[in-house]
């Protein structure tokens, strides 16, 4: 019994970790700006794409670092150019701007790649096979959850114990008041994007090394799933997003294991609908009372 399911569970944990790294970006940005950053999945896709180009001329570790830097620069630029000017505009405008950015990033990728699927480079040590119990799996399966947990732990420490973390918590609680209290809102938001995009870039290295190819639409589905994970965990909550991502990753792979591959994606959205019906604030979310 376990023997047949173990590989799927392992794969699920790995994918879950990758979703978690993307989901953190969504949940933090939503927590602070109340914005669904539709472009986040495309930043993730672009990180993968840049890796494809960089690895041809640079050694692996340099490429990975450059990819992370690239994602951070891209993410913060998007925030500066497309979100910051609209901060006082109606909330729908800023979401539309996010969609516009997503559209631009996808079309630009389409132009660069010529619409072709690019082969993602093989990263030697991630692909190494190892045995866990009865199952044989790749190194990436083991590294992902461990790395995810370590990064999340560091992030939580940052949020809890540093000054900028405190500022982030304050801003997520009350945007207006915290700016009146002398917190540099722009800096907090920039840091949020830096963290979110950096983690998404790391996630992209782990995620795409599982797949052979990458194309301009590769970011859409993992992005959506990561967002659902964030909603599932209670949007605004980092640990919630991580738990949500693991749940989605594991369930999705179990469904694949049961032979229902077509519906492994659909499951995510069924889960979304169910959680919204049962507990709209998500697993760890707090009830927000609108002032009247």
């Amino acid at each position, binding site marked *: 019994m376990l023997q047949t399911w173990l590989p799927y569970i392992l794969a699920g944990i790995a994918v879950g970790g990758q979703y978690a790294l993307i989901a953190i970006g969504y949940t933090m940005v939503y927590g602070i700006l109340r914005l669904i950053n539709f472009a986040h999945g495309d930043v993730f896709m672009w990180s993968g794409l840049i890796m494809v180009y960089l690895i041809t001329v640079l050694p692996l570790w340099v490429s990975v670092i450059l990819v992370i830097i690239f994602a951070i620069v891209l993410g913060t630029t998007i925030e500066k150019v497309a979100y910051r000017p609209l901060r006082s505009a109606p909330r729908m405008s800023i979401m539309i*701007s996010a969609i516009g950015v997503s559209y*631009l990033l996808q*079309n630009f990728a389409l132009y660069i790649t010529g619409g072709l699927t690019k082969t993602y480079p093989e990263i030697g040590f991630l692909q190494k096979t190892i045995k866990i119990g009865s199952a044989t799996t790749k190194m990436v399966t083991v590294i992902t959850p461990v790395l995810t947990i370590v990064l999340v732990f560091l992030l939580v420490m940052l*949020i*809890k114990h540093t000054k900028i973390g405190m500022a982030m918590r304050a801003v997520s*609680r009350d945007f207006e008041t915290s700016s009146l209290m002398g917190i540099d809102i722009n800096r907090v938001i920039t840091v949020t994007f830096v963290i979110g995009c950096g983690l998404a870039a790391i996630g992209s290295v782990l995620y795409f090394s599982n797949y052979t190819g990458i194309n301009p*639409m590769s970011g859409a589905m993992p992005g959506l799933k990561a967002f659902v994970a964030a909603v599932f965990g209670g949007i605004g*909550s980092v640990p919630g997003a991580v738990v949500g991502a693991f749940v989605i990753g594991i369930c999705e792979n179990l469904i694949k294991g049961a032979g229902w591959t077509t519906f492994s994606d*659909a499951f995510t959205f069924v889960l979304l609908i169910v959680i919204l019906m049962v507990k709209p604030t998500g697993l760890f979310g707090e009830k927000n009372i609108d002032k009247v």
Partner: protein
Amino acid sequence: METTLNKKTKSVLSVAAIALFLVFVYLGDIMISPGSSWKMLITVIEKGSIYALVAASMNLLNGFTGLFSLGQAGFMLIGAYTYAIFTIPAASHDAVYQYFEGGAIKWSIVEALEGSLGVFGHYLGMLIPMLGAGLLVAVIAFLIGIPVLRLKSDYLAIATLGFAEILRAFFQWNTLGPVTNGSNVLRKYTTYGNAIFPVLISMLCIAIILLLINSTYGRAFRAIRDDEIAAEAMGINLFKHKEISFVISSFFAGISGALLAMFQTTINATPFNTVMTYEILLIVVIGGIGSITGSVIGAFLFTAASEWWLRGLDAGRWLGISASFMRPGFRKVVFAVLIMLIVLFYSRGIMGDKEFSWDRFISGLKNLPANLKAWPSRRKAKAAAKREARAANAAARSRAKEAKASNEARKASGEALFTPLEVSDTVIVFDKEGK
């Protein structure tokens, strides 16, 4: 200055304009030879009118009810498939469903009605599956709406976007192959003969949307958009009215899907993805959120630009400029940049939230020369205002810097500036212990 025409004159003008347009489309489609570059105009009108309908339906939700829905492509997909599946002639089934032994449905509504009713039956046979497509989509939207419309609008965006993605997978599922043809294209279904068909249907549907918006229900929708809490306090059942708007919007998205299927002559689920929804949304934005006229204008501009005016950007030659970076895909990049510029600097779109009116049109024409003349001085005034604002900003920045410096000094002298928050006081927290 203000020119007001009487109601009768306006109606006559409107009817005349519409009739003229329809005649132009009808004759244009017949008379312009397929090779001519002006044929492109007819194609743009066809496709533009289909997009105008779906954009108007999205505007009903986003612009008039304040619901941020992103399921339009998914709903079009259902509409397109429903129409196509029921109008493939019996004789073509074997060829179309070649991998599924001729498919499960062996008949066509068009043929069934043509047999007994002739030409009238032919068109009835097209209208019935089209209406059926709309109704099916409406029912599905109703079901999605039950859990999702009770929540904040953000969740609606994600749920509808996700639902559209599921649909694509579902329609390409091999098990459903005998009906949907799996991942293969559907083709050979009945399409229209003249471009006037989609134009007329779209016009009719958009007219219905306009009537709805100007009815008491439309007023309730706009109240919800402006202020949900106040609307509810005025006795408007939020859920019920959101459902109504969502279902009707989806119905028309389904119809436009059916029209798109006819326009394309073959369909496949793949292109009905998020990009398509984004494009529809961007049309609404270009035209102006909250203006149906805007959506129509936006749709025509969008189609004209992407199908016609910017084509050269993909082919390496545009407006006499040729460059090697103009290769396939470049058009869409330019396009996306243009749209971002509109979103950022011209967010009201072409029409804002105003609709077309003859009065405004005529006074606009009359004032055009004066406005043109005044343009340079207006621009100068604008630039001056901008300079002033920039100076004020700089002053504010320097003040902020001073304040910061004084804060730093106070901090250095050991004064507490604000009391730290409790860990448990926050939304972003790791554990909930102690809560």
